[in-house]
């Protein structure tokens, strides 16, 4: 094993020397600084992007959602044929092997999907694997998947199934596999000193187009924002993830680095809980609308995010998503109207309300909450700001102890169904119980026709805009910095980075 790894490394070195000789790409190590050291390199072990970024450089999935096109594109599978609404035939890519020599075939994919379906092993993916009923091998390169119901986000689910070599997996088990994975990806595991550095070398036998000019990836966990920024400026890191908003002006003026800002999937909002059990003035829809007029979300975007955060246009779906409703717009900042509406609803002098906010979970969370509280005070609403440690905040989100009013950033999977289902009456942290909304959410979850489904969500967005279960604040922005010689890096809005089209120029 070590021998074969050495020979691969030697081959990689030889190839890169030849490439240099031919005047092609420049071969070098790329150091990547992320917030955390991965817990596991098996991508289906967690949904944390820092784990997935590193793990999926080695272990590939059936499909991938290309951030450049926004489309779900083939990777280890090439075609999906829907035989019916609940049955799919998957054609696999021919001639691909894992780096230990095992073939990537129907046996490997069936094995991997069975793991994906087992919520004991993949609890973090249970929401997307819920409707998978069974999987079977048809022939060496064809797999049949049976679903228990129509599943519009099926392709998204397929893009999250990592394919592992069955013999090796059975030999070492889930935990050990995550520590030293073997996959089909553009990189091969080399070494890992926990909390310090994770080293991967280029896979010389990679089936696809390997990233140009990169012979080695070194993943470095750097928890301190200022240290990640410093390492980028000193050239210690070539790719840095999750830079603080305050670094934008510094990076804009530095020619040696590139600043990449990515609209995040995370939708920031103030939850306005209105169910029966959460007694407060927010149970009145007019009050909820008034609070939307009272908050100047554009000012928050401009002042706290250097204009880089994304306006929501009064809805929780993002512009590229199906179901985004172009007819909707932001409520707009109108404190006069807010005051008038509050008076009409029976609160001429405003009211007092608890407002819970996490501290240190989201970028600028404390500042945003203070700004919102200040704006609400302008219309007579006294928001008693209660700051919560992130762990406690998440606990209170689950039990809805955050009610009646709280700041939250929700980043479900990139499908309108997952976003919408968070406002279903029975969902544990939904701020609203509205039958009409429920009907649309449930209809969208099982509608197979894309256009009809989009229309359902457009209607839902319009209804939600009017019902105002939240104050629509802004879409988040993720900030990356790279060495200016790196091209082709297009991170996705869920914090994922891929190396398929990345190049390191000389």
């Amino acid at each position, binding site marked *: 094993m070590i021998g074969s790894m050495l020979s691969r490394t030697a081959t990689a070195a030889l190839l890169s020397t030849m490439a240099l000789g031919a005047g092609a790409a420049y071969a070098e190590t790329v150091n990547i600084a992320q917030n955390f050291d991965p817990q596991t390199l098996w991508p289906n072990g967690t949904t944390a992007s820092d784990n997935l970024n590193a793990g999926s450089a080695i272990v590939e999935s059936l499909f991938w959602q290309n951030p450049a096109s926004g489309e779900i594109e083939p990777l280890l599978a090439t075609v999906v044929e829907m035989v019916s609404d609940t049955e799919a035939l998957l054609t696999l890519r021919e001639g691909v092997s894992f780096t230990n020599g095992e073939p990537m075939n129907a046996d490997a994919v069936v094995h991997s999907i069975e793991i994906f379906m087992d919520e004991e092993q993949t609890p973090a993916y249970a*929401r997307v694997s819920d409707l998978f009923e069974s999987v079977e091998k048809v022939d060496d390169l064809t797999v049949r998947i049976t679903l228990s119901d129509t599943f519009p986000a099926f392709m998204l689910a397929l893009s999250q199934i990592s394919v592992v070599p069955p013999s090796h997996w059975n030999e070492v088990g889930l935990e050990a596999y995550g520590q030293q994975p073997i996959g089909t990806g553009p990189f091969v595991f080399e070494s890992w000193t*926990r909390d310090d550095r994770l080293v991967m070398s280029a896979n010389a036998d990679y089936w696809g187009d390997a990233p140009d000019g990169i012979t080695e990836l070194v993943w470095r966990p750097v928890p*301190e924002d200022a240290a990640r920024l410093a390492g980028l400026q000193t050239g210690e890191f070539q790719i840095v993830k999750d830079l603080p908003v305050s670094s934008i002006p510094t990076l804009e003026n530095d020619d040696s680095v590139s600043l990449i800002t990515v609209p995040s999937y995370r939708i920031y909002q103030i939850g306005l809980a209105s169910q029966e059990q959460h007694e407060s003035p927010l149970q009145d829809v007019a009050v909820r609308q008034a609070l939307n007029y009272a908050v100047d979300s554009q000012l928050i975007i401009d002042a706290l995010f250097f204009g880089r955060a994304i306006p929501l246009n009064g809805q929780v779906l993002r512009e590229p998503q199906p179901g985004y409703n172009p007819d909707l717009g932001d409520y707009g900042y109108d404190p006069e109207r807010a005051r008038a509406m509050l008076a009409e609803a029976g609160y001429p002098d405003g009211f007092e309300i608890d407002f819970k906010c996490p501290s240190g979970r989201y970028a600028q969370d404390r500042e945003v909450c203070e700004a919102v509280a200040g704006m609400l005070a302008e219309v007579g609403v006294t928001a008693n700001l209660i700051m919560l440690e992130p*762990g406690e905040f998440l606990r209170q989100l689950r039990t809805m102890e955050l009610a009646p009013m709280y700041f939250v950033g929700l980043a479900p999977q990139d499908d309108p169904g997952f976003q919408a289902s968070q406002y279903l009456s029975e969902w544990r942290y939904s701020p609203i119980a509205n039958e009409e909304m429920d009907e649309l959410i449930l209809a969208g979850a099982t509608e197979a026709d894309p256009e009809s489904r989009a229309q359902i969500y457009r209607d839902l967005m319009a209804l939600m805009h009017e019902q105002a279960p939240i104050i629509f604040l802004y879409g988040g922005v993720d900030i990356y910095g790279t060495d200016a010689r790196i091209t082709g890096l297009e991170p996705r809005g869920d914090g994922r980075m891929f190396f398929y089209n990345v190049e390191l120029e000389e």
Partner: protein
Amino acid sequence: MLRYFIRRLVLTIPVAIGILVISFMLTRLSGDPTDLLLPPDATDSAREAFRRNYGLDQPLLTQFGSFVVNAMRGDFGDSLRFHEPAMSLVMDRMGATLELAVAAMALAILIGIPTGVVAAYKRNTPVDISVRGISLLGQAMPSFYLGILSIIVFSVWLGWFPSSGRGTWWHLVLPAITLSFQLVALIARVTRSCMLDVLGQDYIRTARAKGLGESRVVWLHALRNAFIPVLTVLGLQVGFLLGGVVVIETVFSWPGVGRLAVQAIYARDFPVVQAVVLLFAMIFVFVNLIVDLLYAAIDPRIRYS
């Protein structure tokens, strides 16, 4: 002496048990790891599966019972995040933490003590006043701020040292200096005041009267007598150092126990938090036992029975 040592060793057992009980209770009070380790929109059945896998669905008393039984066998459970034995995760990182702590302690002794001696000897001169001023500043400045400042100045602007990570001796310089900064200041201040006290004693006058050289008087006769309180402070400051590494390791991405502890606390990784707390507490207890024994070595008047 031996009996004293053994008695102190036996006394660490109730301390360890107390620490285990407190850390178990405090971690459980702080929330549920399921909220942090699964996505917020995880299904209820997935949450149950996760809790079942890690025994979090058991009643608290049952959890505590099995924790105590296993802990007595040296098994602190598996990390909820890394799925590895918690104590081995901690021990793997101990080398990096010790390297940093020993370097910081060495700096504190090598710089703090001579500085304090000189300041006392040159009392109320510009040397003394500047030492006092810098010490005050050193003790007042929070170490995370000093750390970030030193990264900006010495890594980004001057390019002298790497900004983060561990590897070469160069990597050790900034974190060790930052960690020791407050300690150097404190040791210098304590040494200065103890030396001032000792330098006024009759036996120092006697030493001078019998014609001993000034440096011999100061560094041997005076310092040895002034050293007991300094040693006490050094022993107690091991606690400060262990607390300090938590901050410094995070600022400088140093792969040690402190950083592991911070992340374990944020993620409610109970077994790791418990292992770190117990280990740090034991280190603190043992270092202070050694300090007590050193008293007798330095001052022959001190005898334990």
